[in-house]
C-alpha cells in the first residue's frame, strides 16, 4: 500500500501540473520524503502508521497547494482531471477505512446487498443466522430495535434498498471492497459534477482549484467517499439535480431527484422543493440561459409538458415511487419513520440543532469541516452568490427544518456531518463564491485543521464514530493528557454547555460582520496570531476546574465502575449519561471547591465519600435526583462506600 500511495501521489501532479510548477512540485515531494525519513529515525518508537499517514496527507496537502497557486499556463484543469485525481486518492481510502470493521449502518446495507445477491429477496433473517459467511466481518450484528418484521418472521432492514441494489455489481465482483469501490465511483462522480457546477456557475478556475482539495480531500466527503452510506451518492444526485434544474434539462434533474429520494426517504424533503422550483420556475431564480450546460451544441434545454399544475401532479406521482418501494420493502411507506416527525416541535430544539450543525465540537461544521462555514457565511451575501447556490440552499430548507429538531440531528453513530453531506457541493459552491474575500490566514488555518482531521480519521477510522456524550476527540485527548476538563471548551449542543452559548453569540456576530467583509481587512499574520492567542487562552482555561463535572467524561480518572448507558446502546443519545459506581469503586476529578449539586440515579440507597465526607444518597427509582454536597478544591476522590449509584453530574 505504501508503494501504491507513493506512486499515486507522484502521479497527481503529472495529471494537472505542467512546466516549472510540475518540476517544483515533484522536487518538493522528494524533499518531503527525505526529510520524513530523517525525522523518522529520530523518534524510533513513534507509531509508524500514524507517521506514514501524516506524511502522505502532507504530500497531498502540498500537491493541493501547488494546484491552488499554479499560474494558469502551468495547469491543465478540468472536471475530468479533478475526477481522475479524486479516483486515485479515494482508491487509497478503501484499505485505510477497512483497517477496522465497517460500522454504523454500513454492515446493514451490505447485508441487504448480500440478501439481494444470494437470496434474491430483502429478508435478512437467514443473513443474521449465518453472519460468519457475511462479507461484513461483523458476527455481532443483530436486527436493530424497531426494524420491520414480516408476517412470517421475515427480518427486514429499516434502510432503503436502493443503495444495496446499487452495490450489487461491485459486491459481486469484489465483495466488501467491491461495494466500497462502488461508493468511491460515486465519490468520483460527485467531484466531477461539483467542479462542473463551479464552471456552470461562473466560478473561475483558480478559485475552483483552491476550493477543490478542501471539498474532495477533506471531511466529510473524503470519509463518506469510501464508506457504505448513501450520503455520497445522494450528494452526487443532488448536485446533478441542481445542475439539471439550472440548465432546465428535465432528463437530468428528474432521474437525479428520483434516485435521491430512493436512496433515503428523508431526501424527498430536498427533492420535492427542488422539483417544485424547477416546475414553477420561481421568480428570483434564473434557469438556463447563460448557463454553460445549455450553450453546448446538441445539449438543448428540455422541459416538462403541460401547465404547471399538471406538471406538479405528474411530479408528485413520480415522487411517490420511493414510498411505494419502501412499502414493498418493509411493509410501511415510511419504514420506521412517522409522518408526525414533520410536525413542528419546540423552538428550542430548532435552535439547538441548527447551531449544533454549525458549531458543535463533535458534529458541527466549524470543527469537523471548516470549509463549509465559509459556505454558510456566504448566505449573508445572498444576492452576490451564484444562482446554483441559492437554488440548492432553498431546496435544502425543508430538509434542514425537518432535521434540526430531531434528537439525532448530529447523525447518531456515524462519521461527523452525516445528514448534511448531501449539501456539501452546494456549500462548497457558496464558499467558492466568496473565496477571494476570505483572509489568507483563515484559509491557512482551515487547511491545517482539515489536514489534521484527515490524518486523524484515516489513521483511526473507528474514531470517526463518537458516542454522543458532549465531548469530541480533541477534547477527550487533552482531557486525558491533563486530567482536566478541556472538553467543556468545545461548544457542545449535544450536551449544551457554556461554550456553546458563547460560540452561538460569536457566530451570530460573525454572521453579521460578514456583511461588511469587504471593509474589514485583517492582515493574515494578525489573524493567525490571534488564533495562537486563542489557543493559549483556551489552554490556560482548560487546566482550571470547570463549573460542571460530568462524571463519564475523559478528564475524570475512573477506578472501577462502568459507562452508562453502554457505548453501543441503540439511540444512546436519548439517555442522560453517567458513570455507575459500585461499592469500593472510585473516581477522581479536578474541582473548583465549594457547595455543589450532585445529580445521580440510584435504584436503592447508596453511600458515597467525597473528599473524606460521607453522604447518604436516597433511592431515586427509575429517575434522577439531586443532593447538596460540599466539595474541597483541587483533585477530589469520590468513592462509592455502599450500594450502587449512577453519577450524572456535579454542578458548582
Amino acid at each position, binding site marked *: 500500500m505504501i508503494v501504491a500511495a507513493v506512486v499515486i501521489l507522484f502521479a497527481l501532479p503529472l495529471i494537472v501540473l505542467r512546466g516549472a510548477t510540475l518540476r517544483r512540485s515533484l522536487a518538493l515531494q522528494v524533499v518531503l520524503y527525505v526529510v520524513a525519513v530523517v525525522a523518522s529515525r529520530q523518534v524510533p518508537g513513534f507509531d509508524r502508521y500514524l507517521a506514514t499517514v501524516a506524511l502522505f496527507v502532507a504530500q497531498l496537502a502540498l500537491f493541493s497547494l501547488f494546484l491552488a497557486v499554479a499560474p494558469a499556463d502551468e495547469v491543465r484543469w478540468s472536471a475530468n482531471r479533478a475526477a481522475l485525481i479524486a479516483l486515485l486518492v479515494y482508491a487509497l481510502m478503501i484499505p485505510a477505512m477497512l483497517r477496522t470493521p465497517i460500522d454504523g449502518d454500513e454492515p446493514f446495507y451490505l447485508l441487504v446487498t448480500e440478501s439481494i445477491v444470494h437470496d434474491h429477496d430483502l429478508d435478512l433473517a437467514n443473513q443474521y443466522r449465518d453472519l460468519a459467511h457475511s462479507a461484513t466481518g461483523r458476527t455481532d450484528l443483530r436486527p436493530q430495535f424497531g426494524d420491520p418484521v414480516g408476517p412470517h418472521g421475515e427480518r427486514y432492514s429499516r434502510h432503503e434498498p436502493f443503495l444495496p441494489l446499487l452495490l450489487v455489481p461491485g459486491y459481486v465482483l469484489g465483495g466488501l471492497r467491491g461495494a466500497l469501490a462502488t461508493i468511491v465511483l460515486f465519490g468520483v462522480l460527485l467531484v466531477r459534477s461539483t467542479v462542473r457546477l463551479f464552471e456552470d456557475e461562473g466560478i473561475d478556475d483558480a478559485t475552483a482549484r483552491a476550493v477543490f482539495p478542501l471539498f474532495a480531500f477533506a471531511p466529510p466527503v473524503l470519509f463518506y467517499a469510501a464508506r457504505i452510506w448513501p450520503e455520497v451518492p445522494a450528494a452526487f444526485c443532488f448536485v446533478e439535480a441542481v445542475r439539471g434544474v439550472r440548465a432546465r434539462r428535465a432528463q437530468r434533474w428528474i432521474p437525479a431527484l428520483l434516485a435521491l429520494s430512493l436512496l433515503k426517504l428523508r431526501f424527498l424533503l430536498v427533492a420535492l422543493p427542488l422539483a417544485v422550483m424547477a416546475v414553477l420556475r420561481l421568480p428570483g431564480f434564473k434557469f438556463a440561459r447563460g448557463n454553460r450546460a445549455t450553450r453546448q451544441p446538441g445539449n438543448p434545454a428540455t422541459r416538462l409538458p403541460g401547465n404547471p399544475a399538471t406538471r406538479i401532479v405528474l411530479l408528485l406521482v413520480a415522487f411517490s415511487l420511493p414510498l411505494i418501494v419502501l412499502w414493498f420493502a418493509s411493509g410501511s411507506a415510511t419504514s420506521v419513520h412517522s409522518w408526525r416527525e414533520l410536525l413542528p416541535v419546540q423552538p428550542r430544539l430548532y435552535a439547538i440543532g441548527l447551531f449544533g450543525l454549525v458549531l458543535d465540537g463533535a458534529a458541527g461544521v466549524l470543527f469537523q469541516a471548516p470549509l463549509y462555514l465559509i459556505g454558510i457565511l456566504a448566505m449573508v451575501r445572498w444576492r452576490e452568490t451564484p444562482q446554483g447556490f441559492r437554488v440548492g440552499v432553498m431546496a435544502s430548507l425543508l430538509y434542514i427544518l425537518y432535521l434540526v429538531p430531531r434528537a439525532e440531528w448530529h447523525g447518531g453513530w456515524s462519521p461527523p456531518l452525516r445528514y448534511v453531506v448531501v449539501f456539501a457541493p452546494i456549500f462548497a459552491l457558496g464558499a467558492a463564491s466568496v473565496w477571494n474575500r476570505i483572509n489568507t490566514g483563515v*484559509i491557512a488555518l482551515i487547511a491545517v485543521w482539515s489536514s489534521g482531521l484527515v490524518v486523524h480519521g484515516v489513521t483511526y477510522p473507528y474514531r470517526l464514530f463518537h458516542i454522543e456524550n458532549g465531548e469530541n476527540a480533541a477534547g477527550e485527548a487533552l482531557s486525558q493528557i491533563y486530567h482536566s476538563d478541556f472538553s467543556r471548551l468545545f461548544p457542545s449542543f449535544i450536551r449544551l454547555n457554556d461554550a456553546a452559548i458563547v460560540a452561538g453569540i460569536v457566530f451570530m456576530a460573525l454572521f453579521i460582520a460578514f456583511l461588511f467583509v469587504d471593509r474589514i481587512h485583517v492582515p493574515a499574520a494578525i489573524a*493567525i496570531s490571534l488564533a495562537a492567542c486563542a489557543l493559549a487562552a483556551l489552554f490556560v482555561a482548560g487546566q482550571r476546574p470547570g463549573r460542571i463535572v460530568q462524571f463519564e467524561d475523559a478528564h475524570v480518572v475512573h477506578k472501577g465502575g462502568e459507562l452508562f448507558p453502554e457505548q453501543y446502546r441503540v439511540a444512546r443519545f436519548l439517555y442522560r449519561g453517567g458513570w455507575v459506581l459500585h461499592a469500593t469503586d472510585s473516581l477522581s476529578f479536578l474541582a473548583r471547591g465549594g457547595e455543589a449539586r450532585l445529580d445521580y440515579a440510584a435504584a436503592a440507597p447508596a453511600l458515597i465519600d467525597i473528599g473524606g465526607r460521607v453522604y447518604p444518597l436516597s433511592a431515586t427509582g427509575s429517575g434522577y435526583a439531586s443532593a447538596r454536597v460540599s466539595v474541597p478544591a483541587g483533585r477530589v476522590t469520590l468513592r462509592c462506600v455502599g450500594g450502587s449509584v449512577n453519577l450524572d453530574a456535579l454542578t458548582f
Partner: protein
Amino acid sequence: MLRKWVVTIIAAVLSAYAAGVVAQFGTPVDSVLPLIAVVITIVAAVSRPAIQIAVPLLLGGEIVIADERLRLVWFGLVLGFAFGAVVLGPRSSVLGSSVVAVAAIVLLRWIPLSNVAIWREVLLVGVALVIVVVMRGTAIGVAIAVATALFTPLVPLRTIGFAVAVLVVLVAFRIAGMPDLHFPAAGALVLAIMMLFFAWSGVLARAPHLAIEGLPSPTPRAPVRMALAPGQSVSLDVPHGATALIVSGANMARLRPGTIAGTMNGIPIRIGEIADWGFLRRDHFFKSRNRVPDHPAGQLRDYGQAAWVDGAGRVEIRGPRVAARGLVVRADQDLPPAARLQIDAFELGSR
C-alpha cells in the same frame, strides 16, 4: 511599508505572548518558544504571511506532545517546512533572503541563549550575510550561508576561518563568472534538514552522520561506572541479558583513531570503537582527534548549539567476545597518565 512593520510588530507580540503562555516544559528549547515565534513572524513578514501558521502549529505541539524527543522533532519539522517553504517560493530580494538566513542562524546557534558569545556570533552572522549577498539572495545561497554558520565551531575564534574560506571560494567563483544558482528544491532540502535538528544543532554540526542516522535514544542498561587507569584491569560478571559493554575514554581526546585504549578478554578496544567521553562538546571538538565511535552508545545531552553526544561506544560481548562467566577489561598501559578507560554500563537486550 510602515503599516507592514506595524502589523509585524503586533503579530510578533501576540505570537510571543501566546508562546510564553503555552510554554510549559523546562528545556531551553521550550523556554525560548516566544523567541521562536518572533523569528517566524519576521520570516513571514519578509516572505509570505501564511508562514505564520507555523506559530499555532508549534503551540499545538507544546500543548499536545509530552514526550520531549517527539515534541522537539515536531518543532524541527514545523520550522523545516516553514524555512523550506520560504526559499522554495519565488526568488525574494537579497534583503529578504538575508533576513531569512539570519533568522535560521539565530535558531540554529543561539539556543541556549546563555551560551551565546555575542561578538563572535555577530561576526559569523556578518560573514553569512556577505555569502547571501555574493549568492544574490538565491535559495541555495541562503542554504550555504546557514550551513556555513552552523558548521563553524567558533571555538576557538580562529575557526571563523572556515566561514571566511567558504566566502572566499564563492567570491572567486563569482569573479570567475559563476551564474546565479537558485536550486530552490536543494536549498529547501538543506534548510529543512538543518532546521529539523535545530533543537540539537550542535550534534548536527559536529557529528552530522550521527544525527542523520538517528540521534541516540536511551536503552536499558545495568550501570558499572568504573574508570581504569593505564595498566589497571577489572573482572566483571555479565548480567543476564547483557549484549554489549558501554565504554568511553577520559582525557583521550588527542588520541588518533586506531590507538589501543584497552582490551576486553584480550581483544583490543581501539579509539574509533570508543571515543573520549566529551570530545563532541562544543569547546573540545576542535582540539580533538577522535571520531564518532563505529557503534555509538553515547547519550544525547544538552540542547541547541550546546547539544552533544558522549563518546561512549558499544563493544559487543556476543560472538568471539562472549564470556560465559565474566569479562576482564584492562586499560592499555601505554595510555597517557591522565587517561582513563571508563566502563559506563552493560547494555541489556538487543537494539
